[in-house]
């Protein structure tokens, strides 16, 4: 290779690096339907939440499920889903959606555990002397929950071992276990789980 060509190569590489450093990508937006399944990587996302909620709620609203057949709607309280994954996942979103779907089915009632402090605050205000006694609500009329809905979200992650390759693969397993406990007897009346296994690959080299 003559000197001229070598110098050309050096300058092309240097110039290329500068162009890469200063150039940016055009921004764009795209609207999806909430029903679309969209995954960018192996991590938990909104599509997973929809699948989890759907898979867990479906058996609970079927007429074959004993609680769904009761003439008096069972009263449930949601005590949340523990996050035991290695990601910051808001599990409140899952419980909120499960509660909403069960309420929409018309087969269950829920006491609002998250609003207890506000309910007490409002009742105390009604009895503070500022509210017309004929319009204030009676205390000690709340309904007791019969069943408690709890669960745990777990994950196992496995990365491909180090070796010479251009892509790095990650396998991720999520499982959400959910339980319905009879508060009076402490028996677990129902339990189910949803699993998601996903592999994704990322390039080692980029710009």
């Amino acid at each position: 290779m003559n000197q001229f060509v070598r110098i050309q190569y050096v300058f092309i590489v240097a110039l290329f690096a500068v162009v890469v450093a200063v150039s940016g990508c055009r921004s764009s937006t795209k609207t999806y339907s909430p029903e679309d399944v969209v995954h960018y990587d192996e991590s938990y996302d909104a599509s997973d939440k929809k699948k989890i909620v759907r898979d867990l709620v479906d058996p609970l609203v079927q007429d074959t499920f004993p609680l769904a057949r009761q003439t008096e709607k069972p009263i449930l309280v949601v005590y949340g889903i523990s996050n035991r994954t290695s990601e910051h996942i808001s599990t409140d979103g899952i419980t909120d959606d499960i509660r909403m779907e069960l309420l929409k089915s018309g087969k269950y009632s829920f006491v609002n555990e998250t609003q207890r402090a506000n309910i007490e605050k409002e009742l105390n205000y009604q009895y503070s002397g500022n509210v017309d006694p004929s319009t204030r609500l009676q205390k000690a009329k709340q309904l007791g929950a019969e069943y408690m809905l709890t669960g745990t979200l777990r994950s196992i992650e496995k990365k491909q071992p180090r070796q010479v390759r251009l892509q790095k693969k990650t396998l991720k397993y999520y499982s959400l276990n959910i339980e319905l406990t009879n508060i009076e007897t402490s028996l677990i009346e129902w339990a189910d789980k949803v699993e998601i296994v996903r592999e994704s690959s990322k390039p080692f080299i980029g710009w």
Partner: protein
Amino acid sequence: MRFFSFRARCAFLVLWSLWIYGCGVGSLNTARRAFYDNRPEKALQTLTESKPVSGRDKLLLLMEKGTILHEMGEYDQSAGVLRKASELMEKQDVVNVGQQTAALVTSDWATEYKGEYCERLWVHTYAMMNYLLLSKYESALVEAKQTLKVFDRYGSPLSEDYFTRALVAHSYEILGELDDAYIEYKKLAADLPNNRDLNVKLFETARRLGFNDDAERYRDEISGYPPEKPDDYGELVLFAGMGKMSVKQASDIVIPPSIRISYPQYMDTPLPAADVTVLNTDVPLTGISIGTDLRSVAKQSLSARAREYITRQAARAAVKETISQTIDNEDAAALSILVRMVFFLLEEADTRGWETLPAFLKLMIIPLPPGKHHLKAVFLNEHGASVEETDLPVTISHPGARVYRSVRMTGK
């Protein structure tokens, strides 16, 4: 076809190299000085000004902001910033060809700062502390699991970070994941043999798990020390930071005529205090304490990266020498000297680092009865005399309650 003359292209290369080198870390240094002058608000303001550092130092910006906010007691904001740092580290796993090419003809300053292995760990350690201080225990456990990934990935250079490892076990323990807590305590005990404080934890955890044989063994090892925590007690969990993290400095090897190899080294910084204790009306409280000399872990972490560093240096020296010799052969003597000089000066070790970290971190778990306690965290010199004191009001609301506090002596 030649669009530019040979001299013009050389000048362009030199100017570009100087431009890359010129993007320094000025505002970071200003913020660090303000932080160690006990003006954290000023430090934060400096880092919050619009575009205070180049994109290549974004991770450093987030790390420094994270510790400054933590020391200001803004734990929620600190956790948010450190999560951004964590996301950035994830993105940085992809090798950037443009930056690597630039680094080949300039120096490592041309690349994005990715953090030493230990710094990548401490992003999660500080986030874990923040979440514990905010009583967000599930989030603390998420960070604990992230630290375990870093330990898995980088291994032995980080194994002496006993503080983080104990905090990981603690994060499992407070959420009732006792099996995992026990495993982490046992792994830690394997590296810290005959540590009576740790044996206390192992005894307590083994007993709660119903591992009676193990519990008996640990009870023998800790007989009489410290007294068992009464069941109606709560506990104070204190994170005590001391001193200033070692900073990196460049050391040089020169090979005539113009090859310079520059590599970073951590310079020792003295500890402003030898220990920290907690007093209740001048009486020292006993408990469990496990500490880490962050300076030592940082040195081991940098050493572990030495092979990678040497390879990069060798490649860069070869590229620079090839360019210089090519210019020599073009009969452009003056230009050749100029280019060699610039390359020589540019060859500066990458001494960037997370400098607002403390030199030493200590985890203290102190049993306390329910009630209000007017405690003091006292930093002691090597003779046991007080160097600095911090008031530590603590209220244990009920048996089993945990209160988290964080104190720091920067030692201006």
